[in-house]
C-alpha cells in the first residue's frame, strides 16, 4: 500500500500537463510494478475517460481500486492529489510573483515539447499493443474504421471525448460482440 501511495505521489509531482500526457508515465510505473496487464490498463483509461474529473486522477483511483480495493483507490488518489495541493499552496502563499520569472518560462520552453513527445509516445505504445498493428484481418478493418471515425469527429466536428468513447463502445459491441 505504501508502494502504491509513493508511486502515485511521484507521478503527481511530475504530472505537468495532466490528462493524456500522464498515460505513459503511469503505464511505465504500472508495468514495472506488474500491477496490471495491457488490457486491464486500457480498461482503466477507458473508465477514467468515462467519468467526470481529471483523467490522470481517475486513472489512479481505478488502478488503486483494482489492486487493493477501496483502500487502494483512496491511497492512489491521495498520492496524486497531495503534490498538487502542496505545490499550489506554496505558489499561492510565497511564489506568486516568482512564477512569471524567466527561469520558469525557460523550464516550460523545454517541458512543452517533451510533454508533446510523451503524448505521441503514449499513442504509439497503445497502437502497437492493439490490433491496429497486426496483419490483415476483420478486426483490423473494424479498428481502422473506429480510429478514423474518432479522429474525424474530433478534428472536424470537435465532438466531446465522452461521446467518442460511448460511440466506439457501441461499434465494438456491434462488431466484436
Amino acid at each position, binding site marked *: 500500500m505504501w508502494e502504491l501511495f509513493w508511486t502515485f505521489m511521484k507521478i503527481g509531482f511530475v504530472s505537468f500537463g495532466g490528462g493524456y500526457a500522464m498515460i505513459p508515465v503511469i503505464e511505465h510505473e504500472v508495468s514495472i510494478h506488474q500491477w496490471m496487464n495491457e488490457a486491464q490498463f486500457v480498461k482503466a483509461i477507458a473508465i477514467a475517460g468515462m467519468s467526470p474529473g481529471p483523467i490522470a486522477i481517475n486513472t489512479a483511483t481505478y488502478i488503486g481500486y483494482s489492486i487493493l480495493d477501496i483502500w487502494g483507490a483512496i491511497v492512489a488518489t491521495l498520492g496524486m492529489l497531495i503534490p498538487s495541493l502542496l505545490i*499550489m499552496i506554496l505558489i499561492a502563499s510565497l511564489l506568486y510573483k516568482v512564477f512569471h520569472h524567466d527561469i520558469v518560462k525557460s523550464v516550460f520552453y523545454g517541458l512543452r515539447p517533451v510533454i508533446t513527445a510523451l503524448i505521441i509516445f503514449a499513442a504509439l505504445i497503445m497502437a502497437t499493443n492493439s490490433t491496429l498493428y497486426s496483419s490483415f484481418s476483420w478486426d483490423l478493418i473494424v479498428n481502422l474504421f473506429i480510429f478514423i471515425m474518432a479522429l474525424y469527429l474530433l478534428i472536424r466536428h470537435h465532438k466531446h471525448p465522452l461521446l467518442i468513447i460511448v460511440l466506439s463502445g457501441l461499434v465494438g459491441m456491434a462488431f466484436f460482440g
Partner: protein
Amino acid sequence: MKVEQHQKGTRLVIDILFSFLKISPTTFGGGYAMIPAIEKEIVDNRKWLNETEMSDVLSISGSAPGGIGINAATFIGYRLHGIKGSIAAVVGMSLPTFLIVFILGLFFSFFSDNEKVNAAFKGIQIAIIALVSYAGYKMAKTSIYDKSTFLTLIITLFLLIYLKVPPMIVIVAGGFAGILIMKVKTQLGYFKNVTNDQKSKEQYKYTDYYMGDGI
C-alpha cells in the same frame, strides 16, 4: 466577536466545499473542460473573485504540475480561507469523481466476463488511441514553433522509444533542457520565442477547453 468570526470561517469553508462539490460532477473530460464551470460558479454566482483574478489563477494552475481543475480549486480555496479553504476545495473537487470512478469500477468488474462488455472495451481501446493522438496533435500545434522545440521533440521521442528512458526522467530533463536552451539563446542574442507562452495559453483556454493537455 471571536466566536462570530469563527462561525463565519466555518460557514465559508462549507460554502467552498459545496461550490466545488457542485462543479466536479459536470466536468467530463477533465482539465480544460472544468474552466467554464469553475468561472461560472466562482465569478458569477459567488462573486469570490473577479475576472482578472480568475485569469491569473487559471494561468498559474495550468502550469503547475497536476490537473488544472484541482490546482485552480486549491488556489481559490487558499485565497478565500487559507489552508482549510484549499483542503475544502480539493475535497469538494475530488470526492464526487472518486465515487463515480469507484462505482464504475465495481460495475465493470461485475461484468468482466460479459462478452458484450468486453467487445465494447475493444472498440473503446481504439477510440482512446485516437483521443491520445488528437491530444498530441493539439499539443504539438502550440508547443512546437521553432527549431529547438522541434529538436527537443525528436530527441525525446528517440530517448523514449529506442533507449527506453523512463518518462519521469524525461520530464525532469526537459525542464533543465529548457533552461539550458534559453541560456544559450540569450548568449547568442535571440529572445524572440519565449513570449509565445501567453498567446498560446489564451487560445487554449477557450477553444480547446475539453482536452487536459495544455500546459
